[in-house]
């Protein structure tokens, strides 16, 4: 067919908004994970937090008839899941990897179980959530509708990234978080509770991952299906690690994934026969190549995944 017929404004708009839809859950989750990693806690169970967020968020939106309340419920679900990490890993100092994997498996099982019991017969779907159009900007061709007439949580999401970035650099809380992941003993000696700092960081991570899951179910999919995160949590972990503490990079990372997914769709629709498998591999290959070519160093907080025990030698 004539592929130029495809190149309409609406089509590009759909591609752009598609990239955004795919990127945002990862953006939220990787932002949360970045905070938590800065504080020294690795959430291997991030995917589980997202699933809980998605499930709770979907229920919230469905029964409370509001995408906002749904997103709030998503946050609640994520926080609830992250409490496991708080209690077991931060407070009781259990192995973060073991608990993380357990959380991930548990979340997959439970949400699928609940979904089956609750929605197995009806498969409810949500109304399209209302969007906020920014005057003038939303009238721009192609990008207008897709970027400036979206659910307001999108703007909030990007704003959050900048807020967190500023917080980590400029506030005492940010300083505490960074110290907790690097040299918890120093933070402790300075009179700040390592446990409390890490607790807040993990809860923030849970909230953001839950928000990401909620976004995925409520706005990106409009429904909940078991295992619907499809590995987004693990991608978010990788992105969070690649940011090396500079959380603004989560935007770049998550958009890279979103855009590559859209490109895969666009290429197919344009009739260009590159297998999806190849296109989906692209972001990873790109990052690996970048690492090989440029990264002489990569950095993770030195106390990452290590429990802190005061006075231990």
């Amino acid at each position, binding site marked *: 067919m004539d592929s130029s017929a495809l190149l309409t404004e609406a089509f590009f708009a759909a591609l752009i908004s598609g990239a955004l839809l795919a990127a945002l859950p990862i953006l939220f989750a990787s932002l949360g994970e970045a905070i938590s990693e800065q504080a020294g806690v690795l959430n291997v169970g991030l995917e589980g937090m997202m699933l809980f967020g998605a499930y709770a968020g979907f229920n919230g939106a469905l029964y409370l008839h509001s995408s906002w309340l749904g997103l709030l419920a998503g946050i609640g679900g994520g926080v609830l899941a992250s409490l496991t990490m708080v209690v077991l890993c931060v407070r009781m100092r259990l192995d973060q990897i073991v608990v993380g994997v357990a959380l991930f498996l548990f979340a997959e099982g439970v949400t699928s179980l609940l979904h089956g019991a609750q929605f197995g017969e009806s498969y409810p779907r949500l109304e399209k959530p209302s969007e906020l159009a920014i005057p003038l900007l939303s009238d721009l061709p192609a990008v207008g509708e897709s970027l400036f007439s979206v659910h307001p949580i999108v703007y909030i999401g990007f704003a959050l990234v900048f807020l967190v970035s500023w917080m980590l650099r400029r506030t005492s809380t940010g300083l505490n978080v*960074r110290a907790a992941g690097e040299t918890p003993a*120093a933070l*402790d000696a*300075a*009179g700040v509770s390592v446990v409390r700092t890490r607790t807040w960081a993990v809860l923030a991570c849970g909230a953001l991952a839950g928000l990401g899951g909620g976004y995925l179910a409520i706005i990106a999919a409009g429904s909940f299906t078991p295992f619907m995160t499809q590995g987004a949590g693990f991608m978010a972990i990788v992105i969070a690690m690649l940011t090396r503490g500079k959380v603004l990079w989560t935007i770049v990372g998550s958009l890279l994934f979103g855009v590559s997914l859209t490109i895969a769709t666009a290429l197919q629709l344009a009739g260009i026969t590159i297998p999806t498998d190849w296109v989906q591999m692209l972001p990873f290959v790109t990052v690996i190549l970048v690492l090989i070519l440029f990264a002489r160093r990569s950095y993770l907080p030195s106390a990452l995944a290590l429990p802190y025990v005061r006075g231990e030698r």
Partner: protein
Amino acid sequence: MTTPDSTTPSRAAAPAVELRGITKAFPGVVANDDIHLTLRAGQVHSLLGENGAGKSTLISMLSGMIAPDSGEILLDGRPVQMGSPRTALDLGIGTVYQHLTLVPNLTVLENLLLGSSTSVMLDFHAARERFAELVARLGAAIDPDARADTLALGQLQQVEIVKALWRDTRILILDEPTSMLTPQGVAELQRVLERLKAGGIAIVFITHKLHEAIEIGDRVSILKGGRIVGALDEDELRSKTPEQLKARIVNLMFGEGADQLSGVAEIEIRPLTPDEPRDVSEEAELEVSGLSIDGGDDEMSLHDVSFVVHRGEILGVAGVDGNGQRQLAQAIAGQRPIHAGDIRLAGESLRRLGVPERQERGLRYLTDDRLHEGIVRDESVAMNMVLKRIGQPPFWRRGTIQPSAIDALAEELVDRYETRTPSIHTRIGALSGGNIQKVLLARELAFDPRLVIYNKPTHGLDVKTASFVRSQIREQASQGVSALVISTELDELLAICDRIAVMSSGRLTGIVENGQDAQARVGELMVA
């Protein structure tokens, strides 16, 4: 010396802190045993004791880092529960820990603001001013925006002191604050402490240098095996001569008659007398020629360093910490690539040889970073003794480990070096700093060395062990083992070296024959 507190006699007499019956045990060791100690406002209380005596443990309980098994802490007469460092800080107790507690990837300023900022937003402006003021008081020059991991150990120690002074402290605890400082740095610190005393602050001062303890301290308490075994009060400190005091302390620390056995003079550093015969061969053991190293952005680079160490000679390397000494040592040991120049051991170029080959040829390196580089914390003392000889007989045979051979060696070395450890199977990480140093020393000297690089060999050692180490270096040298001794303590170098080289900004600024005027000439070269 101390100025009598004529201005505020009543305050000086008031006990600011009282420790009553403090006891603390760790697996296999009673670190503190029924300790009673009183700290008074406006006084410096020096704590002395051999390595592993329990000094750090004691002050950790005062600063809330660990909880005592029993006993109580009274502050201004009221018992307090030191649940966490936060409590201690809130009660006005500031601490400089023995092992540095700075966050390496934060800047100096950020480190100081950590935990002390009362507002949500960090006020860098005010912090900068306060920093400038405090640093000036210490007579130091430190860039507040430098990342902590780019500073030399001496500078880090100064930052730690600034950090302890940062908040309004009533009780200041200093655990070996002078171990990395230059003599000038120590003098500045002493002046600062004088001022703080005048302000009514109670100070605990832990050191291994007897003269510091009696000069800076208003009282001295001596720990041994976890117990207070003696104390010198103000009257005694004022009435006796330094020599008498030192003899008394040594006797308390190491048992009655210790001063006779080894002699206080032996224990304290004593400059080498020029007439002492030293038999140094003319043969070159180690030749470093035109050595240059690229330190990158974070580390000091070396430029065109050349010198020779003769067989059986002890060459000292003096200089302020962080002027390339560590880079030099690492390059010779084979731990870092060199950019230009050559290193020869007994005539053979080492350029292409790795660490193990150099070890095989008798080159040994005693690192100055014992905790991070020298040991594997979670392995036993015995295992750490042989970690430089993995796979070699008699500790390994036919590819399998021979625990009995390792244990035998470890028992012997632990005995020889009087290492205080519950057992040779104890995790080495649990040992006190000085005892870890003994293990490292034993490891380097055990297997027929040819040339040993000692990087700050006596850092953190108690007087007796330090003296033992120095005599070991001398003894080895007399048997033809050459030594390159890197130290920031000029006295130590003057005491044992044949010649002293001076390093400054990555260059070797000169080499001085040890003798009458050596001290002055080294001083000149250091500023050159």
